[in-house]
């Protein structure tokens, strides 16, 4: 297979020293194994996620993503834009769709972009990394790269919200998407069947502003994973990963639970299964260490 | 005729009949007891060879009356479909071997069952004649359409297009009816987004151009007499002149009257001209002739319009309609669009409890209304308070759960439709029944509909001048599967007289009614029955010498088919007759009969079963089962091998209404230990396809207790049940219960 190239939008949280920097490390390792070249959009900016709305009106927010897309069109012409962060993907794709449907908004956006010397033409597809894996490779191909099957690990595939709604992955349902389970299976691990909370909300950005309400949601997500016999949770979303991982002590303190379950990215699993080191797989980024993965990586 | 009769009995031994029953014994019974000319056995009677054998006998003139002793009369009809001879079917498969266990102990009683069915079939056949049309039938393709509204016009045109001329009789001076009053109609085609042209003018033009449609304006029907295929209709004009036309069938498209909004003082109707009904808004829109509709009270610009749904409808209040008129939600959306399309700045609010815009088009139209900015509020309006500059509509917002109000320049009341159905022939009867049942509680909603009504058809019928009504004054038939069947043969109602409906539905309905009218004239022309025994050529006749002119038959006929002549003898008007036999069941002197169904065809069966004597411990139970429901249920019991007592003898009847009490008394007198009547559900949700048959039977049988007491018999020996076609398990159970009852109370003393 020839090298596949994509225009890459990493997003703020993946930057060095940021909350999902470990995600990016594992994505890079995974991509190396799959011979994928990610061409980062030069000088990309924040997409404002889905929380910037208080200060940012509709047009300024759309303009943010339009700037990234315009830069991508200029520097990575003809390449699909790929994001690893759910919020980044969502905001960017939404921008492309909304501007595609509304000529007035498109004109206004370009008026604003002109101030930065840019024009947005809306030429390329906006995709999540998971879509690339499933559509451009497929489970069978992904399976071929497995060097160290993740045998003996039971994993709950927590899809969350924004990778799943409103767009989701083609062919998957909003209420019961199965792609993480299939991926887990492909990597030789065992998926938790009927993981009830796989698309429940973790509170997203409200984890900061409404911690108690969010933690109540997170508690159910983890509980349900334990109920399914999970050893760890896997997710495609940085916000989900962080929310579900970092608040476990707080939840334990409040609810008297004894949660201690690693939460990893699919890319972490893939990197390990593809035989990369613990470092390449960014296992050091796990606040709750994924010992089973470490063992396999260190084998 | 009788001396020419040659009876052939054909016994099938297939499907296990031959294994389970003694065919040669049955042959013997057929010839010796049943007096069959001959009996033949075939091991696969419904095969081509078997059928050919029978046909050869027919062709050779060997057989005029045949007994086919095989499967149920409901099976293998294609095979056993012999023309010009009388055929009786003995049900040995579904009715005998399939309901009996294949055991040695059961063998004897099962054989007895079969033997009896052979006897019964022979005696039935003996009294049957192959029905032929009388010479009364006549083909007249001309149709009468009463009412020149959208329904009537459509019916006339659609009939004309098929080659059936039509005469429209319209009361007013112009065609168009209520639809002619509308500015626009609810859209009937995709994308269902905007009000559409009513097409009334196009229809009128089409009618004027069609030589097959005659229009009589300012005219009414002064008299309708006759029957399908030969109605004489007297048309009276305003000026008083009359003319008579002959038609084959009638379509009543007399439409509706709008509800009288004066009964809604709480909504300030009549207190201010700014409160109007939907129909009145159409007038305002039409009068504005493309300009903006102004506030009626003072001619000011309108900026806020409020639509009050279900005004005087879906309500138990006195003077209100209890039903939903169905069209008004869409009509309000349409009318709100009148304003929105002219000026998007006008606020239009529809206050509703359930928005009813069904189907493919309805939901699109609702969405389109929303798209245009029509506001929909789930709420109940309590009062409209008139003001000097605009009015206050007070309502409870059901979503926000608060009492609130909205200002309106114009308030539109979505009032309902009242059917223009003429005089209900049974109004007095119903009122009496309602009073008896409920006293004060009688459905008040109906009162509105029956004040001051004029006859529409002026039928010269024994049972009244118009088509019977079901509820709320609508001429609905209450048949889900056969919506057009009125209780007056050859007269079909269409449009809002039948059920509340909008233009699109009325046009469909009109076309369907035209189909039924055409169906009626074609069949009347051949002497065939209409629904539900469509195609039946048999018809009732009576023995005049025996008739006591008691009028039971003319009164009880569920279809008002029977009139009385000058000498007060019944005239059956065969093409009005549905062939249910209710008259036959009603006749106390048993003079009414059909060629192939009579007091004798059934009576002879009853009398000719072999009656064991009292000490044999073999009771006999007679079941008279409605051929449409109970009999199929018993057949299906057989199909599923559900067992029932071998002591039962089942006779299918056309309708329980055709059961003459003489059959029951004869049965008891001749030693039957029990009698069961199985008919359809009666009452408000009647399932009897002859409407009244089952009910009449129940009434008649309620009086049989006296007879039983006179005979010194227990009343439990005669039971009348409502049995549905799905009572496949229950019907056998009822039989077995009777068998148990007899075991308990003992055998009948009337065995000789």
């Amino acid at each position, binding site marked *: 297979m020839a090298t596949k190239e994509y225009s890459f939008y990493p997003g703020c949280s993946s930057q060095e020293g940021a909350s999902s920097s470990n995600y990016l490390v594992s994505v890079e390792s995974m991509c190396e194994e799959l011979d994928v070249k990610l061409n980062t959009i030069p000088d990309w900016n924040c997409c404002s996620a889905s929380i910037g709305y208080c200060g940012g009106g509709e047009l300024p927010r759309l303009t943010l993503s339009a700037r990234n897309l315009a830069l991508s069109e200029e520097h990575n012409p003809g390449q699909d834009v790929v994001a690893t962060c759910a919020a980044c993907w969502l905001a960017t794709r939404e921008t492309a769709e909304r501007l595609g449907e509304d000529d007035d908004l498109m004109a206004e956006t370009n008026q604003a972009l002109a101030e930065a010397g840019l024009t947005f033409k809306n030429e390329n597809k906006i995709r999540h990394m998971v879509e690339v894996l499933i559509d451009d490779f497929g489970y069978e191909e992904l399976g071929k790269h497995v060097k160290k099957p993740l045998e003996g690990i039971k994993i709950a595939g927590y899809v969350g919200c924004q990778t799943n709604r409103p767009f989701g992955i083609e062919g998957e*349902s*909003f*209420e*019961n998407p199965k792609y993480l389970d299939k991926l887990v299976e492909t990597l030789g691990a065992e998926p938790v069947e*009927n993981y009830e909370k796989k698309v429940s909300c973790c509170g997203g950005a409200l984890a900061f502003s409404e911690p108690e309400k969010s933690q109540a949601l997170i508690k159910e997500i983890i509980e349900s994973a334990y109920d399914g016999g999970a050893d760890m949770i896997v997710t495609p979303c940085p916000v989900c990963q962080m929310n579900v991982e970092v608040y476990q002590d707080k939840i334990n303190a409040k609810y008297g639970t004894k949660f201690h379950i690693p939460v990893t990215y699919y890319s972490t699993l893939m990197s390990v299964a593809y035989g990369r080191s613990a470092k390449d797989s960014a296992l050091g980024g796990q606040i709750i260490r994924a010992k089973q993965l470490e063992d396999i990586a260190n084998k | 005729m009788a001396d020419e009769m040659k009876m052939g009995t054909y016994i099938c031994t*297939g499907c*296990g009949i031959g294994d389970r029953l003694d065919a040669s014994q049955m042959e013997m019974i057929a010839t010796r007891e049943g007096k069959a000319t001959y009996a033949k056995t075939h091991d696969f009677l419904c*095969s081509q060879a078997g059928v050919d054998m029978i046909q050869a006998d027919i062709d050779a003139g060997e057989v005029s009356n045949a007994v086919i002793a095989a*499967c149920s009369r409901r099976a293998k*009809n294609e095979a056993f479909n012999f023309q010009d001879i009388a055929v009786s079917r003995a049900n040995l498969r579904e009715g005998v071997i399939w309901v009996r266990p294949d055991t040695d102990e059961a063998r004897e009683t099962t054989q007895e069952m079969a033997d009896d069915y052979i006897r019964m079939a022979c005696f039935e056949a003996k009294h049957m004649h192959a029905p032929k049309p009388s010479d009364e039938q006549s083909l007249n*393709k001309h149709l009468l359409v009463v009412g020149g509204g959208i329904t009537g016009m459509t019916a006339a045109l659609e009939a004309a*297009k*098929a080659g059936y001329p039509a005469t429209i009789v319209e009361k007013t001076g112009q065609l168009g009816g209520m639809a002619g009053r509308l500015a626009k109609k609810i859209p*009937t*085609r995709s*994308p269902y987004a905007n009000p559409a042209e009513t097409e009334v003018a196009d229809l009128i033009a089409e009618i004027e151009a069609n030589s*097959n449609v005659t229009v009589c304006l300012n005219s009414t029907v002064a008299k309708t007499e006759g029957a399908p295929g030969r109605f004489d209709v007297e048309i009276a004009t305003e000026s008083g002149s009359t003319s008579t036309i002959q038609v084959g069938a009638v379509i009543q498209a007399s439409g509706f009257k709008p509800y009288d909004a004066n009964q809604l003082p709480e909504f300030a109707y009549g207190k201010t001209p700014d409160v109007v009904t939907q129909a009145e808004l159409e007038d305002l829109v039409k009068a504005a002739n493309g300009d903006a509709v102004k506030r009626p009270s003072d001619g000011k610009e309108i900026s806020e319009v409020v639509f009050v749904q279900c005004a005087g409808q879906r309500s138990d209040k006195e003077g209100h309609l*209890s*039903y*939903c008129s*169905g069209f008004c939600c869409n009509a309000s959306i349409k009318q709100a669009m009148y304003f929105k399309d002219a000026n998007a700045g006008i606020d239009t609010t529809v206050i509703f409890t*359930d928005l*009813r815009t*069904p*189907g*493919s*088009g*309805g*939901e699109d139209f609702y969405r389109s209304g929303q798209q245009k900015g029509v506001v929909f509020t*789930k709420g109940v309006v309590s009062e409209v308070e008139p003001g000097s500059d605009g009015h206050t509509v007070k309502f409870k917002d*059901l*979503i926000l*759960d608060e009492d609130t109000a909205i200002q309106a320049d114009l308030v539109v009341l979505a009032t309902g439709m009242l059917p223009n159905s003429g005089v209900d022939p049974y109004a007095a009867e119903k009122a009496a029944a309602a009073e008896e049942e409920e006293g004060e509680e009688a459905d008040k909603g109906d009162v509105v509909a029956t004040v001051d009504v004029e006859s529409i058809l002026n039928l010269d019928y024994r049972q009244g001048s118009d088509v019977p009504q079901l509820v*709320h004054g609508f001429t609905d038939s209450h048949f*889900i*599967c*056969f*919506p057009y069947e009125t209780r007056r043969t050859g007269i079909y109602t269409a449009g809002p007289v039948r059920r509340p*409906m909008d233009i699109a*539905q009325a046009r*469909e*309905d009109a*076309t*369907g009614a035209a*189909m*039924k009218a*055409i169906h009626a004239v*074609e*069949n009347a022309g051949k002497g065939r029955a209409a629904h539900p025994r*469509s*195609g039946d050529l048999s018809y009732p006749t009576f023995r005049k010498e025996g008739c006591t002119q008691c009028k039971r038959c003319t009164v009880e006929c569920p279809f008002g088919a029977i009139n009385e002549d000058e000498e007060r003898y019944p005239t059956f008007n065969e093409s009005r007759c549905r062939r249910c036999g209710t008259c036959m069941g009603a006749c106390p002197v048993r003079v009414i009969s059909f060629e192939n169904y009579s007091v004798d065809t059934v009576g002879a069966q009853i009398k000719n079963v072999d009656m064991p004597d009292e000490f044999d411990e073999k009771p006999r139970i007679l079941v008279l089962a409605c051929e*449409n429901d109970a009999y*199929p249920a018993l057949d*299906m019991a057989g199909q599923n091998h559900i067992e029932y007592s071998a002591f039962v003898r089942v006779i299918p009847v056309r309708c329980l209404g055709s059961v003459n009490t003489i059959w029951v008394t004869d049965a008891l007198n001749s030693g039957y230990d029990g009698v069961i009547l199985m008919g359809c*559900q009666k009452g408000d*949700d009647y399932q009897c*396809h002859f409407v009244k048959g089952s009910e009449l039977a129940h009434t008649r049988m309620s009086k049989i207790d006296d007879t039983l007491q006179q005979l010194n018999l227990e009343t439990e020996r005669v039971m009348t049940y409502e049995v*549905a*076609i*799905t009572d496949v398990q229950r019907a056998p159970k009822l039989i077995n219960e009777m068998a148990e009852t007899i075991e308990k109370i003992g055998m009948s003393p009337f065995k000789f």
Partner: protein
Amino acid sequence: MTDIVATNQTILVVGGGISGITAALEAAETGKDVVLVEKRPFIGGRITQLYKYFPKLCFPTCGLEINQRRMKANANLSIVTMAEVTDIAGSTGDYTAIIKISPRYVNENCTGCGACADAVEAEFDNEFNYDMDKRKGAYLPYNMAHPQRYVLDPRVIGTADADKAKEACKYGAIDLDMQEETIELKAGAVVWATGWRPYDAGKIQPYGYDRIDNVITSVELERMMDPFGPTGGKLVRPSDGKEAKNVAFIQCAGSRDRNHLRHCSRICCMASLKQSTYIREKYSDDGQVTIYYIDIRAIDRFEDFYKKVQDDPKVKFVKSKVAKIEEDKASGNPVCHGVDTEGYNRYAEAHDLVVLAVGMEPSVDKDNFPVDIVINQDGFIEPDDANGGIFAAGSASDALDVNRAVQHATASALRAIQIVNRVAGTEG
């Protein structure tokens, strides 16, 4: 079967449900030659799978019995079952239809005795009962199936079962060599009455029909009520056979929803009101019904029925589209989550059984219609001059209840007659 004589005065009726039957009979009894083509092995269509009709609560087979008798008595009407129209060419008054007939493997000799079914061992999902139980590989689809002739499932052909069936039949009715046939039929006019199918409830993901045992569809409930249905007429839960006394109905399950069917399916409100009486019929005062709805669409006289149900203290109405159903693991109860919008009340109600009032989807996929005909975005056939001599009847034209479908089909019969009379030159 293939020796049907059809001319350009023949009316071809496609679909043998209540609409097709009605159109065919009205035309045939008026003296027209009619060919009725039905995909299933029997005629009757969807109504055969209903327990009761609203609002009378009467039984569909009652009217069907009359119609079947009418059909048996009519020489103008030919019925072809297991047949599908694959193409129609030509123009008004002169059509040629291509009809594909699947092998039944049972010929006209069949007496309906059932010996073949006794002999065959293989069992398959019973489509008549929406796969809720099994039927034999040789079967009569249901008690009143017309024609009353058994069918051999094609999956038994070539197996020992097929030979057993053949051996068991004394009447030479089993013909294992029967092949698929394609025939051409002339017709002057066509009545298209292919009806509807229940919307695939599995697609309504938040309701978990594919995940929660005790979430069923309205059409399945109809089958359960039938004494000859999959539960022998018992109203019990699929998960554990427990009596389903507390039952919820979810309206607009797939209707009025841009994610599913955009249109209102018209029948479902009345169907649920009707079915609420089933629960009360089975369990009397122990029965408890909740109906979650957006608008109750009990048009015209149906309002009386709605009132009657409303007056039942055991039936509760909640104006709400249920947001999602979750299963309570311990009890197996489906729990409905949502907001009662009349005054904003949140609920999480557990029920024994949840019934999805699934919508009506046109049977024929609008993108694969075998006839060139005007179809709207919902897949229903629109009345249009461009359709020539092809007329929709019943729910091929719109979401219709039985009464309205029959009314529509009666009208369509006349439209077809107008064409063939014109061909015959007898239209006057």
